[in-house]
């Protein structure tokens, strides 16, 4: 390899990396981030997007370059060079993806841990009225949604029981015995949801929170999160559950503390009188 081609190759690799990093950092493919999970998630997304862009444009570049540079010109005869193997090269392109994969794996482990995914669900499921037996049956979900989650923090969280059925979500607030078709939560407060389905599998998804968890019949699941931006966001059922699966939606209203208290007050009275 002559000096100029080497310089050219290194130059294009650097340009490629810069381009990839720029794309990852600046092209936004995601909706607003409205929970503590979302900010952490977006960090991972940017990293993956950068790495992915570098790999993708690099491969496309190589293929297109080969097709143009090494195409058979009209009337040309003969074969290419009979190169069958190159051990150093093979080692190189085994090592690079391995390193990338290890990096991505460790990084996403870290992210998942910060989302609370590695927390034991038993501790975060603190519904006092739940017997041991049913807690043991809890299958999965995501632990606390706050980065600096401590058990104290979890104690403060608002418990909500979610029931999914064809084709609606039902939210029950044990504190105040409120039953609602719309999820109301105060901003910056950890929420702890225990979800169970009445018929088939559904899934609770709020894109702006970057969280999703299947709601399974017979096996409760747990989902914890902390909203960070007030507003109304869609709750979407993400698991095929029948003809009206596409219409199985609801809204989560993230309000400031006062509005939430007002809503809570108003509705708990109603449910007290009605029941």
């Amino acid at each position, binding site marked *: 390899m002559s000096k100029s081609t080497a310089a050219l190759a290194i130059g294009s690799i650097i340009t490629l990396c810069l381009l990839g990093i720029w794309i990852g950092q600046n092209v936004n493919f995601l909706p607003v981030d409205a929970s503590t999970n979302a900010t952490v998630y977006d960090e991972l997304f940017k990293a993956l997007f950068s790495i*992915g862009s570098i790999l993708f444009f690099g491969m496309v570049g190589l293929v297109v370059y080969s097709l143009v540079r*090494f195409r058979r010109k009209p009337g040309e005869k*003969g074969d290419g*060079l*009979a190169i069958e193997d190159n051990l150093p090269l093979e080692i190189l392109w*085994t090592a690079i993806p391995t390193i990338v994969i290890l990096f991505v794996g460790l990084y996403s482990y870290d992210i998942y841990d910060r989302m609370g995914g590695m927390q034991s669900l038993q501790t975060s499921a603190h519904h006092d009225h739940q017997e041991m037996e049913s807690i043991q049956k809890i299958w999965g979900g995501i632990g606390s949604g706050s980065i600096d989650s401590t058990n104290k923090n979890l104690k403060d969280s608002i418990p909500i029981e979610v029931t999914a059925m064809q084709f609606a979500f039902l939210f029950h607030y044990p504190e105040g015995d409120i039953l609602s078709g719309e999820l109301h939560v105060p901003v910056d407060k950890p929420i702890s949801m225990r979800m169970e389905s009445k018929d088939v599998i559904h899934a609770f998804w709020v894109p702006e929170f970057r969280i999703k968890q299947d709601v*399974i019949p*017979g096996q409760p699941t747990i989902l914890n999160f902390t909203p960070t931006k007030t507003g109304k966001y869609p709750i979407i059922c993400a698991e*095929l559950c029948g003809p009206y699966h596409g219409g199985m939606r609801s809204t989560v209203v993230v309000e400031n503390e006062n509005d939430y208290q007002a809503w809570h007050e108003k509705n708990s009275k109603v449910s007290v009188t009605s029941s």
Partner: protein
Amino acid sequence: MTISIPPSSSDQSKKLQPEGWLRYFSFSLDHKVIGIQYLVCGFIFYLIGGALASAIRIELVSPISDFMPRDVYNQVLTLHGTIMIFLWIVPVVNGAFGNYLIPFYVGARDMAFPRLNAVAFWMIPPAGLLLISSYFINGAAQSGWTAYPPLSITTPAAGQLIWILSVLLLGGSSIFGGINFIATILKLRRPGLRLMQLPMYCWAILGTSILVVLSTPVLAGTLVLLSFDIVAHTGFFNPTLGGNVVVYQHLFWFYSHPAVYIMVLPAFGLVSEILPVHSRKPLFGYTTMVYSIMAIVVLGFLVWAHHMFTSGTPPWMRLFFTIATSFIAVPTGIKFFNWVATLWGGKISINSAVLFSCGFIVNFVLGGITGVALAQVPFDVHAHDTYFVVAHFHYIVYGGSVFVIFSSIYHWYPKFTGRMLNDSIGKLHFALTFIGFNLCFAPQHWLGLNGMPRRVAEYDPQFIFFNQISSVGALIMAISTLPFLWNVINSAFTGPLAGDNPWSALTPEWLTSSPPPIENWEGEAPLVSKPYGYGENPEKPNLTSNILSDQSNSDSEEDEVKK
């Protein structure tokens, strides 16, 4: 030490087979006829599956459910997924090209079990017709191609049961095919031909058949249990009777993840055959290519739960499957870099076959990268069951496997028919397919990340624009099939004669007439010890026997290169 196989004298059974066009509709035992049967049958199902996909895309032009009733939409998408996977990709990349090519590649005159082979093929059309007829009987299955209970237990039983029966038949056909391939490759090899001299497609089919034999029976067992739940009201997967729905998902994905490699490994093999021929270079890194196939086979069994990150799986399980899944990128990456290295420094003829193969590389890399992203639990928690996943797997199954099938048709059509396809129309076909495909599926990444779940007939109006672009892309893809169909049908009658070996290729199927005679070679089977012996070697000029020269005298130069 080499031993030759003289033509078999006991071909009375073959004499009874009909000749001419009729044999393609007969219970023929000839592996070449069966291969073509698989290919044409698969393509018809592709058109049906594609028509269903078009119906999906028409429905999704508008955000409300207006084109068809909601339950019909679910039936259509279930049929689309099932047909495309079980009746198009799997039978064609394995059955069609496998049957046609593997006996050539191992130097045999037929498959190990010709009769079983024919039986395996003839299970497919009835199964497919059964599946499609369920739509007209009482409504087809409507729980997606994954048929997750309890939904699949509670939806109308007739359609679901027919779906199960049909998938069982197709699975059985697949297992018979797999057994046949394993026996053919391991036992029927021409004496003197070592395993490490086989063309790469043999390795791909061997790996795939191992996957088929080990994983398909689990699916069969699972579906039998599911049908018990529907018919006999047992409670395997019915929570109200104490069953467990997640167990079904584990069993299903234990098959269906390996199934995705059943759809793509043979495609890898086909590309490895096509690229060296047209770039006139040896396949780069033969040994690592073989090991990476085997690595994918092993790893493929250890990653199934990445489809279940939100299904309520314990944290340790999610992490294990994240790591295992990500690592599949390493052997897959090796293959891609080796293909690029094969192109590098070659003298590449830019024809339709090469274009589709290179299109495959580009599309698959994108699909693979989104796959690695999906493998990260925290990422998947947001992206699972959204259009991002739909985009991921169409980039792989369409941009990957289907592109390779087209590439292979352009490459082997002269062998199948003895005539050439029109390359200009082929390039038009490529351009339309490539543009339509990317227009259709690229926007779906954005749709999924921004909140559009999959399997819905109605969606939030904010997604109208990209859905319509996607539908336009699907329209272009549908149109792109027309020049292809015209090309294939027209060239069969009027295409220029191809000669035995139009590409001056070295793999054994080209070392016989086009189309080949009944028992593949008039004389003895050739021993091809270097299937990729292309290229000029500046150090040892005497070995440069395979250089592409004038077409006319290429015959004498296809001398095998002995070690």
